[in-house]
């Protein structure tokens, strides 16, 4: 349980996150929606920081704000999608959405209410977590990621390599009539090859 200053900040961030999430679906302008989404991500990152998961918080900012939200912005701005028309009457389904949401929330409460850790896991959970000043998440993850989990790490790298090859194979097209810059050709130019001197007769062209 959070108390004191931590609790105040928790409720502050949580409130802003929920309010911004609501604004994402109710904002009229899609660009505003994306900006509200970024606010939500920032507050979620702050909540992670409060629980001491500083690595997750930073990853959240880098991946979601830095990549995903920017991608959304690109899509919204570059594609001609009429969001206003898409969202026409979206709020009229709000009661149904709210009902589904409430049912899910009740189910979550019921499930989590009856949740029990097995004794071994409870013992693991009860072990004291070192303070951030003493041992950082990032360092702890790095310690095992490149030693014990090197095998999985390397395969993940190969999976990403396949994804990159796939994207290139399926989308890259070499256009025939495009002029490309050739740096070696430019550097190799000298006056002998680049300049041609001609005597132009007066009153005539070349």
């Amino acid at each position, binding site marked *: 349980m959070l108390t004191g200053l931590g609790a105040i900040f928790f409720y502050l961030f949580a409130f802003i996150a929920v309010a911004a999430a609501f604004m994402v679906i109710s904002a009229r302008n899609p660009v505003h929606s994306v900006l509200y989404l970024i606010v939500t991500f920032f507050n979620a990152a702050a909540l992670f920081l409060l629980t001491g998961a500083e690595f997750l918080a930073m990853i959240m900012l880098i991946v979601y704000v830095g990549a995903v939200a920017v991608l959304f912005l690109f899509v919204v701005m570059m594609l001609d999608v009429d969001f206003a028309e898409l969202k026409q009457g979206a709020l009229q389904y709000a009661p149904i959405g709210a009902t589904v949401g409430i049912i899910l929330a009740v189910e979550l409460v019921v499930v989590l209410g009856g949740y029990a850790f*097995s004794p*071994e*896991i409870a013992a693991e959970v009860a072990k004291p977590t070192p303070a951030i000043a003493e041992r950082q998440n990032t360092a702890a993850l790095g310690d095992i990621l490149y*030693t*014990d989990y*090197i*095998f*999985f790490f390397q*395969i*993940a790298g*190969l*999976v990403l*390599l*396949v*994804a990159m*090859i*796939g994207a*290139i*194979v*399926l989308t890259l097209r070499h256009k025939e009539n495009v002029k490309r810059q050739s740096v070696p050709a430019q550097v190799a130019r000298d006056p002998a090859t680049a300049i041609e001197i001609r005597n132009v007769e007066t009153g005539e062209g070349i």
Partner: protein
Amino acid sequence: MTFDLTSSLILSVPELALALSAMALLMVGVFSGERANTTVTGLSVAVLLAAIVWIVVFPAQGEAFGGAFINDPFARFMKLLTLVGAAVTLIMSVGFAKAERFDKFEYPVLIMLSTLGMMLMISANDMLSLYMGLELQSLALYVVAAINRDSLRATEAGLKYFVLGALSSGMLLYGITLVYGFTGNTGFEAIAAALSGGERQLGLVFGLVFVLAGLAFKISAVPFHMWTPDVYEGAPTPVTAFFAAAPKMAAMALLVRVVMGAFEPIAFDWQQIIVFISIASMLLGAFAAIGQRNIKRLMAYSSISHMGYALVGLSANSPEGVRGVVIYMLIYLAMTLGTFAFILAMRRNETNVEQIDDLAGLSATNPMMATIMTILMFSLAGIPPLAGFWAKWYVFLAAINAQLYWLAVIGVLASVVGAYYYLRIIKVMWFDESVGAFQPMAGELRFVLGLSGAFVLFYVFFGGPVGRLAEAAAMTFF
């Protein structure tokens, strides 16, 4: 968890070789321009063959990378099958690549990376390595399914396969989280140890169902088969041949290892699921193939039903049953490669034809090709004394010895229904009016078709030693 890096690396030499040479060949392809395809394909085949030789000559055994990777007789046998499937389909693609301008050097590189994923799947001894290997394999397969990107059907096939594959990966991951939550472990031995004591929880069964559903998708077993006919039809034929051969070996090996390794203590639960999947696949494969006119679609339904027959052996949960599965996969591989060599040779007027009616009167124009195809079709139908009969014999025998009589009866009935469409191809080839000759068959296709025909025809003479090898592979789990 600490491990000795050197011994781990030595155990995984074939995988390392495949990974490094795939990256090196990618560079070769990039820097040698458009005409690199033949070179890269040749070198890829050489690397795959070298890996086969390495596995045969240095049969390493043991666990590596802290138990994430395991090499045992079963893994070696299935890896050999996978590598043979990959190498032969690459060889078969050479002529097609020239004729159809299907000349992307990325194709052999992606096939190698996909094969690497399959080998990791076969050697997976941990839920994490299972998932990583599966993703490496599948992602490369999605790309090669759509590699003919200017064809609408190929892109549709790729997209369909990708969406459904992503869904199945999601189910698999969900199952893995449930299994992890209820056993507290991801390693197969640790999961088995956690399951063997105490009663089985309901949540764990949910996890088991999701994991099996994800794996059933990869072997295209009913009810997760929907993608198969469209992908087989839409993808370029060499890619279809690869789909039908290598990934099936790896996914089946993975399925066997998961149920025999991790979920061995709750055999009663998974047996029910496997029996259901097996019956559904056999029946759907038998009945849905009847109406097909396209031979690639027909082979898709044929592969669905063959996966059903192979699972009959797994349902038995006995050394005999696993031996049956291993032998079945070996014979299925030989028959599939031969059939696809034949399909690739179905060329007329510089294009590939795919309709069964195009085969009419083949016995008059090319009797040798028609004869070998007839042998392969009889074998796929399970007519003695050809290899296909022995494959079915071992799995049904295992089912009967495990008192699964009705499963064996349904299997035999389904194979009678299935015989209809194999026999129809034979009838079209031998008794219908000829519609013109095919172009002369390429040398490599003739070689593969001949080898496959010889394997199927003479299996009865060398079935004994092969059976003993399969037995040694199966005994890994007992």
